[in-house]
């Protein structure tokens, strides 16, 4: 057995020279904190998406040609539906494990973007985007936008009523682009809504263009990470000039494989037990039908909330119109994501003046201005998300949508400022006290005084805990 292994290794090495490269690679050290695994969760969701997605592609038909439904789902018998919708129903009701694959795919998409967001927060709040990692930050932002695009195009493919309404809103948003809006929209959709081409075009984006970019950039993202080596938190023996952790083989490989398996396990459980996007209930999209409540998938929910909050102001200049949709759907995301994307440069130009290379991470408290800005930004988006579900919240809390909207409009003006100030103050005081909030007791040394009482002194957090 071992000689067979040795022989195969020799075979490959003689042709590709892999042995020495592999040895160096397998001995690479990666630091061991749990928060460094968040990006891997996103990566493994992507793996699940690719595998389940490939399966779905064998059954999905990206055509809006009308067919008559004659499958086992009673309420739709005899209805005229599009071939796309029909193919998704067939997959859900007539293909063994079809519904499981569809639901796993959709849950994986939701968790994928959630993992990216939480990974982005970790990078942001620990300052991991500082030199030399600005490029990887940009690649990461691009991955976020690609993930949003993949999600939106994906859930619009079944041509059901709920996602079709979302497409209609997307059409209106692109129309609202000043000057070129109508042209861009007609080129994208192939004409006036609901132009028949849009489903098949979304299919091309979802299955070919966006995955190619996504996978290519993910590979680049990981390559840059390996090249620059991972960052690490401060601690015993850790400096700016080394990496302390576990080697790629065997420890990190085992851990990553385990995380891959557990990620897939959680997604499989959700895919089997919790229903998601039951398109047969919504019915085929028709441009004059509507259903309530109507929301997009969660990662577009902030945009939905922004549209609900957005003031009803349209502008007319010299006979040309700027739609009221412009402010929440084009200007706001442009500014918010623009600031986020350019944050490494904004921070060092206006806040820290720190142009040095960093491989040791900050704790959030170490950079109060950055943490406060991040918290305020999250508060803005949190308010948008709440407003996006305002009708569901209204039923839950027995409040009118009018009351919720007015309250959240005020909140949008006040809460982010308050959040910034409070977070800044908390960070500064934590920084001064040098105590870690999660180890508040471990950080104190209890001593008996000569007089007979007790006193506590803070333990030096960089010293060896006993």
């Amino acid at each position: 057995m071992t000689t067979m292994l040795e022989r195969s290794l020799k075979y490959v090495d003689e042709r590709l020279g892999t042995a020495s490269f592999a040895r160096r690679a397998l001995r690479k050290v990666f630091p061991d904190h749990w928060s460094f695994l968040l990006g891997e969760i996103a990566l493994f969701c992507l793996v699940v998406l690719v595998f389940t997605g490939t399966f779905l592609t064998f059954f999905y038909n990206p055509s809006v040609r009308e067919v008559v439904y004659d499958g086992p789902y009673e309420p739709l018998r005899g209805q005229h539906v599009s071939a796309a919708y029909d193919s998704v129903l067939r997959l859900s009701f007539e293909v063994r494990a079809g519904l499981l694959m569809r639901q796993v795919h959709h849950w994986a998409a939701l968790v994928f973007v959630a993992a990216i967001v939480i990974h982005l927060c970790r990078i942001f709040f620990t300052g991991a985007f500082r030199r030399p990692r600005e490029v990887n930050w940009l690649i990461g932002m691009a991955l976020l936008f690609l993930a949003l695009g993949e999600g939106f195009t994906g859930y619009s493919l079944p041509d059901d009523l709920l996602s079709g309404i979302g497409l209609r809103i997307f059409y209106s948003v692109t129309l609202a682009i000043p000057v070129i809006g109508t042209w861009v929209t007609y080129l994208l959709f192939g004409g006036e809504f609901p132009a028949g081409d849009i489903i098949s075009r979304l299919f091309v984006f979802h299955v070919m263009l966006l995955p190619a970019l996504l996978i290519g950039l993910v590979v680049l993202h990981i390559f840059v990470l390996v090249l620059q080596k991972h960052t690490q938190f401060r601690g015993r023996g850790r400096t700016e000039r080394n990496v302390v952790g576990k080697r790629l083989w065997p420890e990190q490989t085992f851990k990553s494989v385990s995380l891959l398996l557990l990620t897939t396990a959680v997604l499989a459980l959700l895919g089997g037990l919790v229903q998601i996007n039951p398109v047969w209930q919504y019915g085929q999209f028709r441009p004059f039908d509507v259903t309530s409540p109507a929301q997009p998938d969660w990662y577009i929910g902030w945009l939905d909330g922004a549209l609900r909050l957005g003031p009803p102001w349209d502008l007319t200049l010299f006979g040309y119109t700027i739609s009221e949709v412009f402010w929440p759907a084009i200007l706001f995301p442009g500014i918010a994501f623009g600031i986020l994307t350019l944050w490494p440069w904004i921070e060092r130009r206006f806040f820290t003046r720190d142009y040095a290379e960093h491989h040791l991470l900050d704790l959030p408290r170490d950079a109060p201005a950055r943490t406060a800005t991040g918290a305020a930004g999250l508060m803005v988006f949190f308010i948008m998300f709440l407003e996006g579900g305002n009708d569901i919240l209204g039923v839950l809390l027995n409040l009118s949508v009018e009351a919720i909207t007015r309250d959240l409009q005020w909140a949008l003006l006040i809460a982010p400022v308050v959040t910034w100030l409070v977070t800044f103050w908390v960070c500064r005081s934590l920084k001064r006290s040098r105590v870690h909030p999660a180890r508040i007791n471990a950080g104190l040394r209890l001593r008996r005084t000569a007089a007979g009482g007790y006193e506590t002194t803070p333990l030096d957090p960089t010293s060896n805990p006993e």
Partner: protein
Amino acid sequence: MDVDRDRERQQERTADQRRAERAAAAAFTVAILAGVGLFVVYFSGGQTQVEGVLFCLILGGLGVGVALWANHLLGAHEAVEERHELTSGAAGREAFGHALAEEVGPTLARRSVLVKLLAGAGGALGLALLLPVLSLGPAPGRTLKETPWRRGIRVVDETGRQVNLNSVPEDGFITVFPEGHEGSADAQALLIHVPAGSLKLPPDRMEGVPEGTHVAYSKICTHAGCPVGLYRATTRSLLCPCHQSQFDVLRGAKPFFGPAARPLPQLPLGVDEQGALIALGDFYEPVGPAFWDRGKP
């Protein structure tokens, strides 16, 4: 004393390893059993919930076992690796610059006209490659400003059945289309029967309301285009489910709450000699959300 403590620690470690080994073995066994179960379930017809749970157990059993192995059964130590300089240094960059500019450099300066023409040709190619993009869709033209409604066209419901003054009970509403264009996305309109005398429209708009009770508005929300399908009978208002814009039916579908800025365009209606409802023309304004040249003819 230290030796004893070390031996103690060694024994603990082995006990800890033994526990982890047993747990990992159990986890892998669960995975195997779940795998068998999955085969049985699949070949006897399949069931989504059971399939999901069994897949979870296979993957979870494996995952838990591998994690236990990683954390307890590997002789893992902390390792340290030195970082290397990332930069190639000034010398390295200079060498790269030389390699790049060696042959081309002098040529670049001497043949500047050629270089400019090269740039021009490249630009022409770039633009030419973009041309097929324009084939992706038609020019907008006037299509966003017009719908199929014309003077004299009969009003029908989505099945094509004619609509007349008795079709809608008081405080009722239905979705209507121009005859021959049932289901049309931009022509969709709401016909609402309000009590006599309750409408508060200017006189020229009242001319498009037969009997002063049957008023029609575009169903496309002027905010972001969703169909405004919710009619609230007590307040006589229309609510759009997408972003909660609300329109006052009695006052020309003017928005009184929410992000919509403009009222739903009214469709002027009349009655023909047979008593059927007809349109008296297209909507008074372009329907749906705003766009750049909406105000231009």
